[in-house]
């Protein structure tokens, strides 16, 4: 790849926070680095992964809205987590995490347990646990 061939296909995957370092050959035949905002095949592959995740997230949202699952379930899926991982971040046993997916159980949870979930899901407050639009952060 030559320096002038380094692609700059922006799909905003870096959100303007950084760029990717690419190694390319300069005019003098020597290798150098060029920063790139993205490349189409890679962007598509990344978006493909998120598309699959988005489907799962939407499904989880529906289950919460219809009252079948508690919001914790939604946040777990939103954070690309599974029960084991949630257990690991909260320090709770897996069976308890699963039990907290029941809306009735969830609504009675004391604050100190809710705080564990706030920490695990990277939220700011307990109120955010009720927010099902948190994936647009």
């Amino acid at each position, binding site marked *: 790849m030559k320096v002038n061939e380094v692609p700059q296909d922006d799909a905003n995957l870096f959100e303007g926070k950084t760029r990717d370092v690419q190694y390319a*050959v300069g005019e003098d035949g020597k290798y150098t680095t060029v920063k790139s905002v993205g490349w189409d095949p890679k962007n598509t592959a990344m978006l493909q992964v998120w598309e699959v995740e988005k489907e799962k997230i939407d499904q989880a949202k529906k289950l919460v809205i219809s009252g079948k699952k508690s919001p914790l379930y939604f946040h777990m899926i939103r954070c690309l987590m599974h029960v084991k991982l949630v257990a690991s971040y909260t320090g709770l046993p897996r069976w308890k995490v699963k039990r907290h997916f029941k809306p009735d159980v969830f609504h009675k949870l004391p604050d100190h347990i809710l705080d564990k979930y706030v920490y695990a899901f990277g939220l700011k407050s307990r109120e955010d646990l009720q927010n099902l639009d948190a994936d647009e952060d």
Partner: protein
Amino acid sequence: MQMKINFEHRMSAHCENGVISNLLRYYGIELSEPMVFGIGSGIYFSYLPFYKLNGMPVTSFRPWPGLIFKRITRALNIEMHSQRFRDPERAMQELNNNLNKGIPTGMVVGVFHLTYFPAPYRFHFNAHNIVAFGQENGEYLISDPVMENTERLSAFDLKRVRFSGGIAKPKGKMYYIKSVPEHVDIESAIRKGLKRTVLEMLKLPGPIIGITGIKYLGSRIRKWPSKLGERKAGQYLGQIVRMQEEIGTGGAGFRFLFAAFLQEASEKLAIPALNELSMEMTKVGDQWREFAVKAGRIYKGRHSTETYDELSDFLIKIAENEKKVYQGIDKAIR
């Protein structure tokens, strides 16, 4: 506590190379990212059909995290200290002690809760490397080699990423250089790195590693659409391209980074043949890029003329071309 170590942050393609390169420079050893990568024999290939990530087989273009580090310190005789913790509070205390002594300190962290990272890249990946080089207004000053600028993390956020959950937990792992030798023998380190690369890519037994691994993957791709269906097969292809091009490979699954190393090695060892091999490797890298373009046309699902059969053949051809480069290296360094 307010303190800042005079640490130069330089961006790199890959976090592990970058942290090593930046830490070494602080202690007066100037090694570029390609050098670190090459001496640590960073180029690699393995296809693990039985080991699944997100339900897809793992294709890896680099050795196990931490390995390049180990090889560099051994090859250059650098004394490193590294430790893990059970207690997060102690892990933070030890970090503070280190910073107070003016020691830039490397850490292994998970990226999911890394607040400054672009959201689309925040997966549960637990082998990211960063360096802390100070504290200001209660925040840690962070040099993350894949970020263009230095970043900041609160103690709360740093603790969370140091004790992230999931596969291969970092457990607060931190490391720092204790001493460096007065003289480092770069030439012999380069030779060692090249020899190990030839061994790993050409000579290791079994079907999943090195050139044979690439060919094996090539032969499997052919069967994906009939075995998995179009959608899943497309996702499998996408996974390969992600591993090949995602943040940190410098393009073409580290092939360009390796070509850059061959070029530098050619000068340092005064072996012109290595420069020619560097150009050959660049061509191989270009073919890997072409592979990604072809694969992309398929998984985009725009009724392309590209087929899985063609892709299979193409990958096997790439493997043949890449093989010649390693054979050339084998000859050139004898």
